């Protein structure tokens, strides 16, 4: 995998992970280009796009687009399932995840991604094991302020809505 981008329907970047070394300006250019291309796709079209010599595989969950760039020979369907598994992981971790969870806790989303994909390859595909690793690291964290987080999510969930159940 070359990179993974999460962005909103409005084209706002929510998460970016690059597995190939690129300069900042290249990253910016590419993400702008890819976001534009993906947002221009109509709903009934397929989830794959030819882009340069690579493939863009994307899927929309509620208001958020998950998008990966893979090599041309890569199996697009399995990439689609990688995305899905990542969403499942987020969903399990946050408890019916929505875009706001990812906005406000983007560093957590990164931790989960790093535990799932390392150096562009799937590292651990078992949901249980990935989440266990995250939880162990989280245990060190001081008491998490879940109450406030809950209130926050409640307020916004009304407007944005959570992902369809995974």
């Amino acid at each position, binding site marked *: 995998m070359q990179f993974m981008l999460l962005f909103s329907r409005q084209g706002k970047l929510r998460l970016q992970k690059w597995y190939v070394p690129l300069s900042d300006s290249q990253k910016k250019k590419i993400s702008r280009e890819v976001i534009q291309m993906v947002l221009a796709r109509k709903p009934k*079209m397929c989830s794959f796009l030819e882009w340069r010599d690579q493939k863009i595989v994307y899927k929309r969950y509620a208001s958020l687009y998950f998008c990966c760039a893979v090599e041309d020979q890569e199996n*697009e369907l399995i990439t689609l399932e990688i995305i899905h*598994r990542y969403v499942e992981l987020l969903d399990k971790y946050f408890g019916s995840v929505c875009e706001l969870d990812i906005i*406000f806790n983007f560093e957590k989303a990164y931790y989960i991604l*790093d535990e799932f994909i390392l150096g562009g390859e799937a590292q651990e*595909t078992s949901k249980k094991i990935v989440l266990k690793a995250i939880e162990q690291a989280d245990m060190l964290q001081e008491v998490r302020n879940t109450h406030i987080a809950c209130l926050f999510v409640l307020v916004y969930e009304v407007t944005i809505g959570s992902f369809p159940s995974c």
Partner: protein
Amino acid sequence: MSDVVEKTLTALPALFDSQTGAAKITNRLRQLIKSITELTSKHEEENLIKQELSAMKEQVSSPNTTMKQMREIMVRAMYCEMLGYDASFTYIHAIKLAQQGGVLEKRVGYLAVSLFLNEGHELLLLLVNTVLKDLQSTNLIEACMALTVVAQVFPKDMIPAVLPLVEDKLSHPKEIIRRKAVLALYKFYLIAPNQVQHIHAKFRKALCDKDPGVMTSSLHIYLQLIRVNSYKDLTGSFVTILKQVVGGKLPLDFNYHSVPAPWLQIQLLRILSLLGKEDQSTSELMYEVLDESLRRAEMNHNITYAILYECVKAVYTIHPKAELLEKAARCIGNFVLSPKINLKYLGLKALTYVVQHDAKLALQHQMTIIECLDHSDFTIKRETLELLFRITNAQNVTVIIEKMLDFLCYVPIKTLTFAPDNSWFIQTMNDVFSIGGDLLQQDVPNNFLRLLAEGKPEEDDQLRLYAVDSYLTVLKGHTSHLPQCFLQVMSWVLGEYAHLQESVDQREVIQFLTQLLDQRSVSSETRVWILSALTKISEGQTDLILDLAESLSSSQDTVLRQQAQELRHLSQDSQLHEWALPRGAPWDSIEVAGLIVFPYYDKLFLLNINSGYLLTFSRYSNFFRCTCICLYINFVYHFSSSTLILEGVKRVWGKDGYLPQKEATAPLVDEPSAAVQPPGQHEAAERIESRPEPSTQNQDKQQLASSLFVGLGVGSSMSLVRKLYYDGFTVSLRGNVVDCLEARSTSVCHYALLMDDPHTNVSFTGTVSYQTQPGHTNTLPFSGTLSTADFIRPLVVTTEEYGKLWLSLSHDVKQNLKLLTDAGDPLRTTLNALKDALQLHVVDIIGSEGIVACRLLSGAPCLLHCRVNGTALAMWLRSPHPALPDCILYHCQRALTHH
């Protein structure tokens, strides 16, 4: 229940108070995110982030900032970077955080480092010691973090420093550490394969690891290794692993939607297909397990299709076995025929792969392939073309190439925005033109020329220069094989832009073009283009041109002869040349008493508002034939006079619509249409809108009436209200181009306007957009007023028909009008006056009663019943349209008053 809520609520403040660093940390970020979402403009966001960043800058350099605060700053810095702002001043602090902080800070620090820096960044060197320390840490989490960062960003030169430690981790008791170590080594292998050569044996150990996660990770390395070395001896192991996985021997944790470890399966299938490629004995080892995989993957879920796809690829890659091939072919069929578009795509991809081995397979899916060829999804279309490309043979080559060219026609202009540079674009377009040639749709050269013409002078001169240079090179070589459309494009570009290239002698360009003219393969249409180009650059080169013009003046082709004449005149008279073909100068528009003359692209437009005529003159205009109009335009253009009176422009809108005899343009239309300009170029330029604008006086009256009579009778007040509504809001005219006559030098567009909803007066406005200089679109508004009277046409009916129609009409209005009493027969005089003024048809006059009929142009009829009532004329109007009687009544009143 309420108790619980109450307790929770009372506990809340305490909770807030008890929050230590963590809560504050998240709150800061939340505050930032919230305030960003509340902003409305990009500018505000920039300002806010700028403030935020400068505050952060201050904080990070302050010695009092604690590690906790630093952690919070880092998270915000990551957020700012994600939004696209530069927070590079925090990079060094990210490294410090990873170095000095506790576990929590390290976590954030390492994450920030992996997001901020890439492999080549020099700051990473500062991280090496931290990583070394953490790799040796007894704390599992610290070791994990160090391995994660190593597997993501690590400077190539520093690999030897950490390699022994990472290697040691391969035998760590914890599987998570082993797994991460394997992936770190995989990463090392990718960036520096030589560094890890000595530990290949340890990879084998990882492959046999009891933890499936570690084993799966090691497959990444093997997939790479197998591409360079043969690991045939491992085939047995891989087959066994796959058998176990497919047989469901792995813990249930590894299931994904009830499919056992699909990622592992796919990885193994890939490895097997590489191993079995062109190797019969190795392939034989895996037939069984492949068969098993094909059989097992039955469930209707994406993940099983992903596995099936990989299976099919493997079956077709390894040494073939008929039975497996048959099964795989059936699988592909399922993919291709699937209604799910993602599967269809993958099916096409599989088919593309497979037809290289067995072209017949594509035959079964002919119809699907044809359907996919016209699919609205670009991705599907492209994959289908790829497939077609693979099955091209002597029989189908023409059709396939045609399809590809169709696609090609679509691609170049579309993708221009992505063109890396000018020379690439011109070169690509050259290829398209020379390969695609005359099969290309006319749009392609048109759009290409438009792109060249519309650019800004300074910016796009570069592109034009490239084009000129490249075409001169092309013309130096053999030109006889070049398609006509390419020649046309070249001559247009050279004619327009050859002067930009100062290093090239214009005489040379003229010579090239003249040579082209002499070629037999050049069609007469192309010759016209070439001559036009020559006309543009002929200035001052009289000697060359005169010879040419001389030789052409005896040509059999009248158009060429004509152009040769023009050429000769223009090349001799530089002032006239300047007039007719101003080089590069923007052509300003001039509005003259209802007449707008403006240039667009390569044409002059003459828009006569009064007549509704839009005349178009090509820049290649045929000067000497249609002297009158052309000179007129030149006159207008040259003197920029604003006091010109329109003489010689004929009235073209008569009472019956536009007059059929087009005196002004007839001679032009009669010319052989050589279609110098591809039709359709100017059509996009016009847009006519109509907007009803009742005379204010009338509107006031109606408003008054509606307020006076409101509630008196439902019917009448309704109709008044409706009328106001009509006048105020709806668009009541519609128009469309009824015909466009194009000749060599003119095109005339007629707009037919129809009135759907009658109004006393309707004004129409429109705009014509055109370009005077590349990149600048100018818009000229024009407007005019039409009344219902313009749309009234006589309705010829007999008295019987009138009677029948009368009964069927629902809306009626009665009013007394002034009777013209100055003649012997007042009724007849009055009706005749109305007939003259409004084109009514007088059906019959019996005694003191007269019946009259009319209708709207292609619209509703209106019948008038008139009776002499003393000194007044009692008029009774009926129509199927609610507003029409009122309008006609109004116009009758006016006609009689003005009489």
